[in-house]
C-alpha cells in the first residue's frame, strides 16, 4: 500500500486547493503519505507528482532535502535525542549514550522489533529544558536516564498511545477552511490591488462596514 486511500485523496486535494501553485503542497502531501504508511514509499512519490503536476523525480528531489521525510521504514516510535549545544552542556551526550545502551542500537538504527528508531538530533527548541528529546516530535523535557527507561517501558506497553501517535502522524488536528468562509488562494498571475487597500478604514468607529 502506498497510494492514498480515498479519504486521504480527498484531504490531499483539499490541501492543494489552498495554494496558488499546486507544487507548494509537496511537503504537506509527503507528510500525509508518511501519516498513512509510516514512511515515503515509491508509489507515494509517483502519486504526489501526479497530483501536483511534477515528475516523481522532482518530488524525490524535494523530499530528499528534508530529514523528517523517511524513504525507509522507521520504527513505530522515532526517538530523537538532542545533543546540540544547550543539551550537550546539560548532559545530552550522556543521555544519548544511555539510550543506545537501553535500546541496544546505535543512533540511526531501529530495534529488531521495529518499535524504536533512535536518532541523534540537532536543536529542537527546548534549550531551557535540557536535556530534551522528542518521541514522534512530542517533547520530553529534562530527561534523566531513569526517566528514559520509564519512557521506553511506557511506550513499549502502549501506555502513551493516546498522546503519541505512530511515526508519521504530526498534527492530529487539520486546518479546515470552510467553503463559505474562504477568501480563496491568491493567484500570482493577474493580481489586482486588494479592495481594502484604500485611504479609508475598513470599519467605522462603531465597528460596522462603512
Amino acid at each position, binding site marked *: 500500500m502506498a497510494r492514498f486511500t480515498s479519504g486521504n485523496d480527498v484531504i490531499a486535494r483539499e490541501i492543494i486547493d489552498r495554494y496558488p501553485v499546486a507544487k507548494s503542497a509537496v511537503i504537506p502531501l509527503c507528510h500525509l503519505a508518511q501519516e498513512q504508511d509510516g514512511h515515503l514509499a515509491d508509489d507515494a512519490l509517483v502519486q504526489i507528482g501526479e497530483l501536483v503536476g511534477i515528475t516523481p523525480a522532482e518530488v524525490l528531489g*524535494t523530499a530528499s532535502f*528534508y530529514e523528517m521525510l523517511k524513504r525507509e521504514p522507521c520504527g513505530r516510535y522515532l526517538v530523537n535525542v538532542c545533543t546540540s549545544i544547550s543539551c550537550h552542556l546539560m548532559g545530552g551526550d550522556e543521555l544519548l549514550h544511555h539510550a543506545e545502551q537501553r535500546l541496544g542500537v546505535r543512533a540511526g538504527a531501529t530495534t529488531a522489533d521495529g518499535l524504536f528508531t533512535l536518532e541523534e538530533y540537532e536543536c529542537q527548541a527546548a534549550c531551557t529544558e535540557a536535556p530534551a528529546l522528542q518521541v514522534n516530535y512530542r517533547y520530553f523535557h529534562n530527561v534523566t536516564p531513569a526517566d528514559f527507561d520509564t519512557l521506553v517501558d511506557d511506550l513499549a506497553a502502549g501506555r502513551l498511545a493516546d498522546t503519541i501517535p505512530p511515526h508519521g502522524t*504530526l498534527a492530529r488536528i487539520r486546518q479546515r477552511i470552510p467553503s463559505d468562509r474562504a477568501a480563496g488562494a491568491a493567484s500570482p498571475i493577474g493580481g489586482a490591488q486588494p479592495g481594502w487597500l484604500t485611504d479609508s478604514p475598513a470599519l467605522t468607529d462603531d465597528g460596522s462596514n462603512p
Partner: protein
Amino acid sequence: MTITDAKPIVSTRWALDDGHTLDRYLTTGGYEGLRAALRRPPGQVVEEVKAASLLGRGGAGFPAGVKWGFCPPGVFPRYLVVNGDESEPGTYKDRILMERDPHQLIEGVLIACYAVGLAQAFLYVRGEMALAQERIATALNEAYAAGYIGRNILGSDFSVDVVLHWGAGAYIVGEETALIESLEGSRGMPRLKPPYFPAAIGLYGQPTIVNNVETLSNLPWILSNGGAAFGALGAETSRGTRLFAVSGHVKKPGVFEVEFGVTTFRDLIESQLYGGGIRGGKDLKAFIPGGASAPWFYEEHLDLPLEAGAVGKAGSMLGSGAVVVMDSDTDVVKACHRLVRFFSRESCGKCTPCREGTGWLEKILRRIIEGQGRPSDLAMLLDVSDNISPGIAWPPRQTTICPLGPSAVSPIASALLRFREEFEAYVGGALESSVEVRGAAYGPKRVEVAAT
C-alpha cells in the same frame, strides 16, 4: 542591575492553561488590535508600526515597518510568509508563542495583511513542532468560524486566507529566501540577493513580506496601545520588550520577556528573577549572546545592555535572543565542535565554501577531540574559516549566498582565540603565530560600560 517594571507584551497568556483557546483570548483583549487596525486606513496602520520601531525578532533585526515599505508600489498580489521555523541552537521562544498563544500570532498576521495589502498568508511552522501545529490548526479553525479570518473579515471588505504550512526538518529554511523556496515545494536553498529580495521578488516571484513569529505577535498590542507606547520602552534602536531564552549552566534556565535595550546580560544570567546565576557556585567561562551563529561573550561583557547597537559594537549580535551560558568546567573545544557540527549538518550544499568548509571544520574538530589532532590543525581551522568568511571579521564577510557558512566560523574564532591553550593541550603543540595574526582581527572587543 537594570531590571525594569515594564509589563510583558507577548507572554501575558503563557501562564494560563487555556491561553491558546479563542474563548480565553477574547476575554483577555483578543482581536481588539485587529478591530483597532480596521478602523483606520491601512496606511495609518503601517505608520503606527513604524512609530513603534519594532525590530524584527528573527535574527537579522531589521525594522518591521520599514521592511513592509519595500514592496514595490502597484505590483500585486503580495504575500505574507510567517517564519515559524525556529531552529537556531539555543533559541526557544517562537515555539512557546505558537503553542501557548496562537491567536495572538494570527491576529498579528491579519494586521500585517490588512496594513500592507497582502492577499494571502502562509504560516510556516517548523516540522518538528507537532503541538504548535495542532494549536495553530485549532486556532485557525476557531478564527475562521468566528469570522476573524477568510472572506469579509468582521463584515468588512478585508478578506484574506491564512494557510498553515509546515516544514520537514531543515534549519536553513529559516533563511527567508530558502523559506520561500521550501514553501514553493522545492529544496530549501537560499536565493541570491540581489535580485531575490523577497519584498520585490518573493513567493511565486511576487512581492512577499517575511516576518518572524515574535515580530508579528507584538502587533496586536501595538495597535491596541499605540506605537508610541511601545517605542517608549527600551533604548536606542531596541524598543519595546523582547523574549530571551537563557539556557546552559544557569540555576534557572527559562524564557524571559524583558524590557529591550536596557536590561543587561548580567540581569538575565544572574538575577533571581531570571537565570539565577551560574549553577553549582562555578564561575562564568563564556556565553553566547544571540544563538549559535553569534561570536561568544565573556565576563567583561556582562554589563552590556541587551541593545542591538551596543552588542554589535562589542563584536557580536543579539540574533535570535538565545543566551547560552558556559561555566568554568566547560570543555570549550567540545562546545565549539558541537556548534560547528550543527552548521555542517545543516549546510544546504549550494555554495562550495560552506558545503566543503563546514564539513572539514567539523572533521578537524572531531579529530582533535578524539586525540588524533595535530598542531597544524589549529592553523587549518583558521585557514578554512578564512575561506568561508574572508578575514574572519565581524560583522562577517562571506563567500557564500547566505550567512550559514560564516556562522560556523563564529564559534571557532571565539573559542580558538580566547582559549587557545585548551586547543593546544588537545593537539600537543602551539598554534602557528602567522595564522594567529590573521585571526586576531576577529572577536569581541573589550568595552567599557559606564556603571549604572
